[in-house]
């Protein structure tokens, strides 16, 4: 396992603990807009960029699907593949919402991931983001935000 790399230092400790306790292979924490906050298990910025974009879109779709089917948004998604499984859920720190997506295999289980993600959520609730963005609407510069967060995680393009 590699240590998490983070764009915001306050998430490093809880992210590392979640990675270790839940035996996750890889994971990304991001803003709902798709901007990455921290990651582990990836060495390629392009992979994280794709995952952030897809997770953001899946989250929006799942919420709307929940509203349509159940009258309230779905906040947690699990997909079981043959060898690997994906878990997506939201967490909140200082009223700012974040998304998390994690990948695990037979070394863990959905039950174990849910337990430690619950502890991760509680840990985050007690923390304050470095630069609170409460109520901040997306800037509209999706690509720029994404690239800035990837620079923070992997270094500027050309130095990665």
């Amino acid at each position, binding site marked *: 396992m590699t240590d998490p790399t983070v764009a915001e230092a306050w998430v490093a400790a809880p992210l590392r603990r979640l990675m270790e306790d839940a035996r996750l292979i890889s994971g990304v924490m991001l803003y709902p807009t798709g901007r990455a906050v921290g990651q582990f298990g990836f060495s390629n910025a392009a992979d994280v960029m794709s995952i952030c974009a897809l997770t953001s879109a899946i989250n929006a779709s799942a919420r709307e699907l929940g509203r349509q089917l159940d009258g309230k948004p779905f906040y947690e998604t699990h997909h*079981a593949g043959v060898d690997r499984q994906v878990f997506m859920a939201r967490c909140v720190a200082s009223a700012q919402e974040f998304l998390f997506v994690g990948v695990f295999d*037979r070394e*863990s*289980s*959905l*039950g*174990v991931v*849910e*337990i430690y993600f619950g502890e991760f959520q509680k840990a985050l609730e007690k923390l304050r983001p470095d630069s609170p963005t409460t109520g901040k609407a997306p800037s509209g510069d999706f690509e720029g935000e994404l690239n800035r967060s990837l620079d923070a995680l992997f270094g500027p393009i050309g130095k990665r």
Partner: protein
Amino acid sequence: MKGLSEVVATLSHLPGVVVAMVVGAIDGLIVETSGIKGGSGDNDPRKHTAALAAYLYSKATRAADAARLGSPAFMRLEAEQGHICVVGARDVVLVTIVTPDANLGRVRLDMMNAARSDL
């Protein structure tokens, strides 16, 4: 063959059994559980116990396999204030939380019989 709820009800009525559960062996999620004696809400140990007991049992299975002992028949974790007992039954595991003064022989026998013939 009994239904899952009947298996859980039977085990939970044994003296000293605090909780009896049927748990998914792979995902660690509760399939069927008895009511809890002496706690619920934040103090409810069932979800955590189910996930971690199933996880532990999967590791014990690998350890037994590595030692060329075959599948584990019965797993008991002894703690300061009681025991966690686990028996595997194909796609599920039976999990009980038991007080220190329980008749462990009876609990073991009934769990293994349930796993063999009722699940």
